């Protein structure tokens, strides 16, 4: 369970990223976060992975208070929350397999275990056949699937996706969203930040609308409310 209590984030010197956010996200939920540019969506994502610290308020993830999480504990948080960003962040000189394995290597997982896990997650995202390719030899959608595979290696309880489809066409977007739904069906909480009206409306799941750093709407089976 993720809870935010009266969370505010003020960037230096005086930019209000988020103001007084109160949210609860239950395990297994699929939540879309929408809002206009500058509304604070990425700020929210960064707070959840402790890339930024809240100025005020309290953030709990699975009973763990990460409000003032010390730097040495951040890596453990990152292994519990898979992260996907719009710019894929794959290493160009590593193959698909190596990119995914990398996330396990840096966490000190033994090589034998890595050889088990990587094919499994590549199969989940449907890229087991293309494990030996380099990122430049993949389509945008496939690249994003590699990122998703990489975010899954630690079996995270939460998957955080900040505009994962921002660079993709409709078909690839469809594929990625279906993949996220599949992962959610396995029990993983998914938080999806998106600008895509069709995606949000077709999901028929909870939608949180941010506006100027505040929660403007929060509906269990929500719709994309913003003017386009």
């Amino acid at each position, binding site marked *: 369970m993720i809870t935010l209590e009266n969370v505010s984030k003020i960037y230096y010197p005086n930019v209000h990223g988020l103001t007084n956010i109160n949210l609860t996200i239950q395990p297994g939920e699929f939540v879309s976060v929408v809002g206009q540019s500058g509304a604070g969506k990425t700020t929210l994502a960064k707070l959840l992975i402790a890339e930024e610290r809240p100025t005020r308020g309290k953030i709990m993830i699975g009973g763990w208070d990460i409000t003032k999480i010390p730097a040495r504990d951040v890596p453990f948080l*990152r292994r519990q929350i898979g992260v996907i960003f719009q710019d894929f962040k794959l290493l160009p000189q590593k193959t698909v397999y190596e990119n995914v394995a990398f996330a396990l290597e840096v*966490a000190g997982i033994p090589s034998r275990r890595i050889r088990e896990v990587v094919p499994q997650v590549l199969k989940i995202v449907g890229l087991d056949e293309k494990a030996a390719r380099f990122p430049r030899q993949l389509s945008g959608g496939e690249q994003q699937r590699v990122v998703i595979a990489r975010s899954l290696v630690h079996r995270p309880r939460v998957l955080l996706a900040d505009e994962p489809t921002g660079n993709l066409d409709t078909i690839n977007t469809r594929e990625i969203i279906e993949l996220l739904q599949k992962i959610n069906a396995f029990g993983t909480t998914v938080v999806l930040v998106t600008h895509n009206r069709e995606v949000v409306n077709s999901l028929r799941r909870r939608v949180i609308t941010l506006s100027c750093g505040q929660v403007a709407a929060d509906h269990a089976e929500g719709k994309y409310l913003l003017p386009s």
Partner: protein
Amino acid sequence: MSLFVNSWRIIAAAWKHFSRNLWLALTTVFVLVLSLLSVNVLLGVNVLLSNAVRQLEDKIDVSVYFKSETPVAVVEQAKFFMTSLPQVKDATVVTAEKALEDFKKLHADDPKIMSALAELDQNPLGAVLIIKARQTTDYPFLLEALNNPQFDFAIESKNYDDHSDTINRVRDISRSVQVFGAVLIAVFALFSILIVFNTIRVAIYTQREEIGIMRLVGASNAFVRSPFVLEGVFLALFALGVTSVAVYSAAVYVDPRLGGMFDGANAGLVAYFTAEGWRLALIEGGVLAGLVALSSWAAVGKYLKK
């Protein structure tokens, strides 16, 4: 989490950083070698100077010339008395006969002196007592002790040269070399630290994507940092190896060529660096690796703050 698996991955990563920026790495090694060389050149010069002082000090002695015809017993008594003093390291007697023989040998080519000697029907030379003190500062005392009524009547003259001018000059040079050397070492050490800092920053810059991803997927700070620190240590060890070879070769080359300045066969550099080599390598390598590791650690540090 297996320590062994991690160590291996960290070493592999460090090696990769090193080889990716090979030219930069080599330049850094070059600067590190310069600073190590400055230390060793100073050490070498110190060895030369202290060997020179020791050799000069070895030459100091008091020669006591006895009157000719002085009975052997008086000379032996003087020797016995002087040897019994704790300040005396060594006292040897050159008998009158031996002194004459030496004198003849020395002037064998000079017919005038030889014929003058032939005219004499007895040995014009007396015995000589050569006294060496344990410490150069003991000589004034020894000269005083020679004024002993038991034998001072038989003494013709005393000859004492303390070489103090030369020794003091060498000591002065030695001091200036040390001051100058210390400044040089400090400057090179500072350069080394800055250059290593910069090298690691560049290494971080070329790896920035990888570091970003590492942090995103949950690599611990230590895991991100260690390869860079290790890279610094690689650089230091590499520099140490190059310096060791250079210093030893230089010593082998220079030693016999400086022999002329020393009465012995060589200047004692090879002997010094052979005897102290491991200890020096350990100390210099240790200090350098420590400094470099610290510098690398600091260089990554800024990147990890967040």
